[in-house]
């Protein structure tokens, strides 16, 4: 008997298999793209690895490694002595200079000071200092005494330098969270030991009472429950008190001069991190000038502040991650130190992105 093959049926089966294979392949591609499409953020892990490597390099067997403080060439060759090489070939056109920031400080141990940080006897930094703003944002609390932080208030200092700003704030008994110097350096409670600079978890006295008058001033600075704590409204009995809900930033500027590009870039980094951390809406109700919470009373940051460009850039910034740690160390002659290591890894954007 002759076996007759159904060739038409074979063709249909082949087409069926092709369709099934296509569906499976398409689904696998879809799932892979969905799951791995967004890269995992390992910057924090990289920062920790770098911090640990530096700590291992500086301390051995419980003692600060000999020669670090005495040998002047150690600082010059620190990276190579710690087997760290940041100068990789920029073959993919990455912004190599913005990929990292490393800061090391060795201070004498002084238990009388808040962070035991006595006189600085060794300091080293390399890389992009703007990444340091990441750190300032990382280790802060989401809320201040149970109240939500939902506002950023910008001031100008009417001083020629950040140092002078600190002095003036101290003299006037005021405080602030950050000071942005003309070269883009940011002073904070992390790097400046002054009562004028407080951490984000602490209310700063920077824009409290906006009405003149001793009665209003006493009311706002007392412990009396604030009226409308979650509303940005002015109370007739008192004044608008925004200190308890805001982060205050002083920008070093005399009030009648242009802001420097370095200042604005540093401020954009700083503010974009703050809004990310506290989920503050990026608009002019929540990012305000002192002049807006004290209309007719305070003029800062003034008409020379580039609000439009600044707000657009803040909106385009992303959150950065960083890490900074300290450890206690002694040397063999029983001198005590605090070693601070601050390694920061950047976002890794390509040029032009």
């Amino acid at each position, binding site marked *: 008997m002759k076996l007759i093959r159904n060739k038409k049926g074979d063709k249909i089966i082949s087409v069926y298999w092709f369709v099934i294979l296509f*569906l499976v392949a398409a689904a696998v591609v879809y*799932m892979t793209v969905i*799951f791995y499409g967004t890269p995992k953020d390992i910057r924090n892990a990289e920062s*920790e690895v770098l911090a640990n490597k530096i700590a291992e390099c500086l301390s051995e067997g419980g003692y600060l490694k000999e020669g670090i403080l005495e040998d002047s060439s150690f600082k010059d060759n620190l990276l190579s002595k710690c087997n760290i090489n940041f100068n990789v070939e920029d073959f993919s056109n990455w912004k190599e200079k913005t990929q990292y920031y490393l800061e090391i400080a060795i201070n004498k141990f002084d238990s009388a000071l808040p962070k035991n940080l006595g006189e600085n006897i060794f300091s080293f930094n390399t890389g992009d200092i703007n990444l340091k703003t990441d750190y300032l944002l990382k*280790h802060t609390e989401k809320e201040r005494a149970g109240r939500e932080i939902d506002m950023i208030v910008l001031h100008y200092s009417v001083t020629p330098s950040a140092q002078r700003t600190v002095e003036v704030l101290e003299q006037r008994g005021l405080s602030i969270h950050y000071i942005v110097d003309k070269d883009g350096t940011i002073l904070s409670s992390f790097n400046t030991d002054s009562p004028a600079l407080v951490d984000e978890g602490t209310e700063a006295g920077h824009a409290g009472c906006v009405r003149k008058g001793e009665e209003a001033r006493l009311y706002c600075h007392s412990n009396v429950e604030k009226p409308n704590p979650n509303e940005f409204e002015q109370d007739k009995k008192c004044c608008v008190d925004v200190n308890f809900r805001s982060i205050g930033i002083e920008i070093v500027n005399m009030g009648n001069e242009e802001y420097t590009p370095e200042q604005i870039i540093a401020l954009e980094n700083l503010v974009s991190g703050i809004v990310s951390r506290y989920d503050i809406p990026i608009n002019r109700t929540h990012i305000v000038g002192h002049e807006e919470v004290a209309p007719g009373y305070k003029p800062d940051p003034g008409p020379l502040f580039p609000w439009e460009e600044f707000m657009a850039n803040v909106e385009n910034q992303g959150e950065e991650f960083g890490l900074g*740690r300290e450890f206690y160390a002694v040397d063999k002659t029983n001198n005590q130190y605090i070693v601070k290591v601050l390694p920061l890894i950047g976002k890794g954007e390509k040029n032009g992105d």
Partner: protein
Amino acid sequence: MGIKVNKKAQVSTTITWIVATIIIIVILLVSMFLTTLLKLIPKQEVSSTIGDTDLFVTKSLLSYLLTKDSSGENIFEQLSDEENLNDFNGNLALNVFKKLYSRDYHYEIWFGVRYNRLGQNQNNFFGKASTKPGFGVGEEIKINQDKDIILTLSKRAG
């Protein structure tokens, strides 16, 4: 001679193919749905901190134990010889561990000597250690069979 086709056999074969196709498509759809769900779960930061170790804390503890008082005796020797923390090593421990690490481990920081025999973890500087283990890191150094040096730093309740 005409070819007889078994139509019943064809029906069962066709049903098998249809069912197989439906199963494949259902599996794919479920997988795609689960993948999409996983994507919606917020990603945690990847951290290199593994388990119960923190190199910076370990470094501080080692240096702390090697710190000498005015008589030249180091803190490890003091803790070996004495019953509990004294003014020198207790205050230094407060300054080192609380001041440096309360930011990272804000739930509990406890340092002291633990007596296995008595089961007491208490001193004048850090108070009584929590009996419930927290989530964080810990260091334990055995002085002898009855006595350990304990350092625990917790981020939150365990």
